[in-house]
């Protein structure tokens, strides 16, 4: 059996092995010519080329797009308009009323995303903390239950969206439960409130396993003897949690919080499949606004989409710097 697997592995790998042999000769010549320092450049070249073309160049171009108008996608065809696109996004006659803004959809998306992030991140942190605490107990089948909560993390957002659309539809599973409990069935996704709540619940369902794992790793790094000492003193569990677990878990909690914030701000795929932003614009979030402004709507405006994405990017940069700082602190804490 091992022989067969080995043979199969060789069969799959042989084109690559052949390629590697063929590449070796020109690279030897190059190495003799440039020395070992030149080889570092060779090894870095493919990654740097891809990063450059598909990340750095677009990043620079983004600012150029945000300064130009029109519907053309080629930069050369686009007239320079300065900060007009930002103005259009941010201008309102009366900042207390959304509908007086020039781009009221943008403000709707910002508002929705804000509310979504507040509730979803709170729910996410709470649920994954409780789950991590429970999985950290001395229970049987811990590996199994850890896998249970992790399962949806692997599912594609389209699958997640469709699974829940099917459950929440008129003749769906949730309405079956409602009827059996003697309650009125609802058309969940046609209701502004329920649809919004569904986006929060479904995205939490899909991603909580990931955060649970991070918190679980943090919990397992807390020294056991602290708990043993607490048990000897017959400390009540709530007190153990407040005095030992929570302070020692704080760095991991902070990382989870910021990571959830970063992901929450960018929420798109599963919500797009679940509600499509509706009913109306009640579940329209920032990324969908950018996608629609740039690509999907009839009056597409790449400049406006670029400007909106730069504003979102600014928020994300701040959050990411916060995350890097926090995770460095979390690691430092663990070493100490």
């Amino acid at each position, binding site marked *: 059996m091992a022989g067969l697997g080995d043979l199969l592995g060789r069969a799959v790998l042989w084109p690559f092995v052949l390629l590697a042999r063929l590449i070796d000769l020109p690279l030897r010549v190059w190495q003799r010519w440039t020395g070992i320092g030149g080889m570092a450049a060779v090894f*870095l070249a493919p990654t740097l080329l891809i990063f450059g073309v*598909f990340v750095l160049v*677009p990043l620079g171009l983004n600012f150029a797009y945000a300064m130009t108008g029109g519907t053309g996608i080629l930069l050369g065809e686009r007239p320079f308009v300065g900060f007009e696109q930002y103005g259009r996004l941010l201008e309102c006659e009366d900042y207390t009323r959304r509908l007086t803004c020039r781009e009221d959809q943008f403000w709707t998306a910002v508002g929705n995303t804000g509310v979504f992030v507040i509730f979803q991140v709170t729910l996410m942190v709470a649920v994954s903390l409780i*789950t991590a605490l429970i999985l950290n107990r001395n229970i049987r089948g811990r590996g199994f239950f850890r896998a249970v909560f992790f399962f949806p*993390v*692997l599912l594609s957002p389209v699958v997640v969206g469709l699974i*829940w659309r099917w459950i929440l539809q008129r003749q769906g599973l949730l309405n079956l439960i409602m009827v059996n409990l003697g309650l009125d069935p609802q058309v969940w996704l046609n209701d502004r409130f329920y649809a919004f709540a569904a986006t929060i619940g479904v995205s939490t369902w899909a991603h909580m396993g990931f955060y649970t794992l991070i918190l679980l790793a943090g919990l397992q790094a807390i020294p056991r003897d602290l708990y043993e000492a607490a048990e000897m003193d017959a400390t009540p*569990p709530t007190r153990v949690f407040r005095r030992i677990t929570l302070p020692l878990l704080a760095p991991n909690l902070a990382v989870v919080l910021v990571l959830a914030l970063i992901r929450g701000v960018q929420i798109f795929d599963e919500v797009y499949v679940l509600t499509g932003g509706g009913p109306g614009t009640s579940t329209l979030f920032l990324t969908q606004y950018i996608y629609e402004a740039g690509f999907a709507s009839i009056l597409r405006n790449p400049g406006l989409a670029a400007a909106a994405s730069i504003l979102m990017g600014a928020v994300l940069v701040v959050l990411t710097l916060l995350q890097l700082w926090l995770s460095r602190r979390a690691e430092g804490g663990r070493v100490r």
Partner: protein
Amino acid sequence: MSKVMGFLTARRGHGGRWHWTDVVTWVWLIGGTIIMFGPALWLISSSFKGPAQLAEFPPTLLPYVQELAVVDGYDDPLPLFTATLEDGTTQVLAEVRRVGTNAQMVDPANPETRIDVNIADRTPVRQIGLATDNYVAPLVANDFVRYLWNSVFVTMMATIITLLTNSMAAFALSKYDFRGRNAVMLLIVGTLMVPLSVILVPLYSVVNATGLLNSLWGVILPTVATPTGVFLLRQYMLTIPDELLEAARMDHASEWQIYWRIVLPLAAPALAVLAIFSVVWRWNDFLWPLIVLSRRELYTLQVGLNTYAGELNVQWHYILAMTVVTMIPVVLVFLFLQRFITTGIAGSGIK
């Protein structure tokens, strides 16, 4: 049995009494199992129901198919119903055709005489069974085989290129000391801050300018640049002792050979983790393929599913079956490789 009871009643500490936290634990774990697995199981069960059964409310938990009977004088098998006749008796009849609210039915044992039955007075005879046509039809008649192939192609190519380019970069960043190394590291850290949703418009124009629009390579290449992959591999390669490399250099191995014959095989565990991640990432990608691919024959499974699910008249029986198909590779990864991923995440906090 005693083992099961022991499992179910396992609790904290050594005392005989149940603590309230034990109750919370088991309620949470069992409820969690239902909530996490239930939706997927419901999807699978629904995907084997025929269109008529899917439209029913209340829905049944398991899929049923209507029983068919071969009746003399008719070429095709006829569907069976339990019909209540005018005299109040019930009888199992086969339907010949339906006219308005009435159905012409025959007794399978006595196929000469036709009986008119109001469709309100009959219920289909059903048994638990699978409507496998949900799976066969879209794969054969619609473009789903194409989508499936496109998804497999994108996932495989992207993973191979990711492993190759990322491991080369990680090798250079972990085993060479050159000017500008820190700058390169910083650059790669920096790209972590640039998610796809932030550079959607200009990335589209770059892909357009390079002629990759409406090509699967336009989906593959931009996703290959994963800073997380370079990180993961670099961290692992730092643990490979430099003495091994020095010994190889003594034997006149070229740097490329050192990378290919020594470092890469030694980094196999990290490569395996990255491969698993990459397969799941690329298989699940949605927003970028949605933007790059506008020709139907190039759609990946995710984009194709979204398109069919977005039609006015959603054909749920096909959508559900294809959702299950889309789920299969990820479920396989979950069943067999879940441990690698969970330890990978717990160790590095990447996803």
